[in-house]
């Protein structure tokens, strides 16, 4: 009796040992392949750097030096003073003129973004306390820039008026809005775009690269040979996941280093939080990649699907660049199932704000649920059967 029990447990131990060895063999194989395949290096390291570079330098929502035309219809000390306020503003690069028609052509061609008109009767009216309005004509074909030009122009005028009234000693009631931008006082869009692009990089590695490699195994017939060995489907999946999980974390680390040391994005949270969040996001990303490749078994289709369901949503439907609240309700619903939506705020927080665990934990929980669902689906479609 005890003898039989012993041999059973010995057999179980040997089984466990075999399983571990098979798993390690798969991991080792995958690692060699990653290191030798130029396309995985390209997706995991070159592409992330290009993306980061683009978001660090190329994509900027900060309209710092927007060109505008400034029309002073009649030159008086008052209008000159107001014009000087515009010229001194760090938001505008001002081109001076005397007639708005000089600038209309430029506005159509997109050479300037707006025209500020200080009307001829402004000075006189100002003295009488009944000033004609200052016109701000903006190029509405780019609404975002148009908004900025309007807001900044309004700000310049309001400031000027306050200073003026203080000088003349008039007792205007002054309500003074004091803005404080927490976490990002210098208002650099780079500071929130770069952390967001780290998530996009992980989506690329997790979804695009993983789906390509697995589909390639189907195309080349190696999957078939594997399946006829004692390997189980779970081992096959796990053997794929671990190396790409590590690869995802490595390219994330690379991105974070570049973000902090090259772009000077502040990093206020803890490394522990950063890795926990990233790991939680890689699960659904990898699960999605595995599911795509298991269902298509074809590199072309897999790459198209990965781009369409992984990269583009991570880019457009995640709150990375575009505010989710501003989208129509139907599209807001769609964003609920985009994993990147939950990781981007967490990454922005860990970079800019620090460790805010209640926020992280909620997002991590959602990501884990998504990851589990995707893995179950992937495992189901990777049973050891062909066709």
């Amino acid at each position, binding site marked *: 009796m005890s003898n039989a029990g012993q041999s059973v447990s010995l057999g179980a131990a040997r089984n466990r040992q075999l399983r571990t060895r098979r798993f390690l063999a798969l991991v080792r194989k995958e690692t060699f392949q990653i290191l030798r395949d130029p396309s995985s290096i390209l997706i995991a390291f070159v592409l992330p750097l290009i*993306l980061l570079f683009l978001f660090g330098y*190329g994509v900027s929502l900060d309209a710092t030096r927007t060109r505008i035309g400034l029309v002073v219809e009649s030159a008086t000390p008052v209008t000159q003073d107001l014009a000087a306020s515009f010229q001194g503003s760090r938001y505008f690069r001002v081109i001076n003129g005397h007639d708005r028609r000089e600038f209309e052509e430029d506005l159509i061609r997109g050479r300037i973004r707006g025209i500020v008109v200080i009307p001829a009767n402004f000075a006189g009216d100002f003295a009488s306390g009944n000033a004609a309005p200052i016109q*701000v004509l903006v190029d509405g074909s780019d609404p975002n820039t*148009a908004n900025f030009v309007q807001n900044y*122009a309004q700000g310049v005028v*309001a400031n000027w008026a306050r200073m003026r009234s203080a000088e003349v000693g008039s007792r205007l009631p002054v309500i003074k*809005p004091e803005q404080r*931008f927490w976490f990002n006082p210098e*208002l650099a869009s780079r500071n929130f775009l770069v952390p967001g692009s780290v998530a996009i990089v992980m989506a690329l590695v997790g979804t695009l690269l993983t789906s390509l490699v697995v589909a390639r195994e189907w195309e080349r017939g190696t999957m078939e040979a594997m399946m006829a060995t004692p390997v189980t489907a779970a081992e096959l999946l796990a053997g794929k996941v671990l190396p790409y999980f590590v690869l995802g974390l490595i390219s994330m680390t690379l991105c974070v280093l570049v973000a902090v040391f090259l772009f000077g994005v502040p990093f206020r949270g803890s490394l522990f939080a950063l890795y926990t969040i990233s790991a939680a996001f890689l699960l659904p990303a990898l699960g999605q990649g595995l599911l795509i490749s298991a269902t298509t078994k074809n590199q072309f289709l897999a790459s198209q699907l990965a781009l369409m369901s992984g990269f583009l949503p991570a880019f457009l439907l995640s709150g990375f660049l575009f505010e989710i609240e501003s989208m129509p309700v139907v599209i807001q619903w769609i964003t609920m199932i985009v994993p990147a939506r939950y990781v981007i705020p967490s990454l922005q927080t860990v970079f800019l704000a620090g460790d805010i665990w209640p926020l992280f934990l909620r997002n991590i929980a959602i990501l884990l649920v998504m990851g589990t669902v995707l893995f179950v689906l992937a495992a189901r479609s990777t049973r050891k059967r062909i066709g």
Partner: protein
Amino acid sequence: MWWVRLRALILKELLAVLRDPKGRFILIGPPIIQLLVFSYAATLEVKNVDILILNQDSGVAGYELVQRISGAPSFRHVLRTEDPAEIRDAINMQRVMAAVRIDATFSRDIAAGRPAPVQIILDGRRSNASQIVSGYLTQIINGLAADAAKANGRLAAPVSVEPRNWFNPNLDFLWFMVPNLVASIALLIGLVVTALSVARERELGTFDQLMVSPLRPHEILIGKLVPPMLIGMFHITIFILAAVFVFGIPLRGSVVLLYASGFFFLASVVGIGLFISSLSMTQQQAILGAFLFLVPAMLLSGFATPIENMPEWLQPISYMDPLSYFLVIVKGVFLKDLGPWDVALNTAPLAVIAIVTLSSAAWLFRRRME
């Protein structure tokens, strides 16, 4: 003779893409879905924002300010709190984008003509949106200030600003996004179709078959060039129709100009696609190559963010990007009735890009035969 061969090749290329129902779907389905979803999703507009107000003032002015903020159309939920600690929590957890704090002395200060500060605390993690929200709030506060002055019988604020939006009076984001997408999706489709065409034939071995046929290299090139351009033209047409009839975007300029420059745009796109295709040996390389071009081309084109916001040393790169020129043309023709001369100025670089990429593709094509 040559036109018989060429016609056969063009016909074949079209059939190869369009005969398979799956292929047809991939060409037509996703672009239309993209147009629909992204037109609405890709908005830098800020609305439906949640705001938190901490009003410690018991006077009329504070109440009035809260009312005005609550009534503003851009805000969805305006939450109230009594606890200053709640502000930190709500912003940290991103429950609200901004918090407004009105001090206890607010009404008294206004009545006494003293400066009355209002604190606006914004979530800098989303600095773009929060700047716009700050603009909204500042406007409301300035309005209150002016009215308060009037009510107190003092001088009204002497200066007002009258904004006027040309080309897009309501600053509707759709008017901006849809023309942008017309150009970018045409780029995406044109590039992928061409980049794959030669690589696929190489992988399947039919390329040798073409090379031993009487077709000459430049004929093969033209044969590979025409079908994606036709498909691109088809897409542009569909998108223009959708823009006008589905999205209601005004088409103010000349359609003829739009198509004429569209021709050169597609030629440059197809040139780049063929260039990538003749560089790559497998379909996978072609896909990755196209992707590697596409992402920077989109991001540096001025599609999402203006080119002038980029550092000056980076701006020259966008001179090489066909999308940056065509975006100006599409938006210009749609919204601004851009004139022939301006269209021509932006089309000329497209023609140059087309000539350069096509001739280098042809050169590579021959080199690769060795």
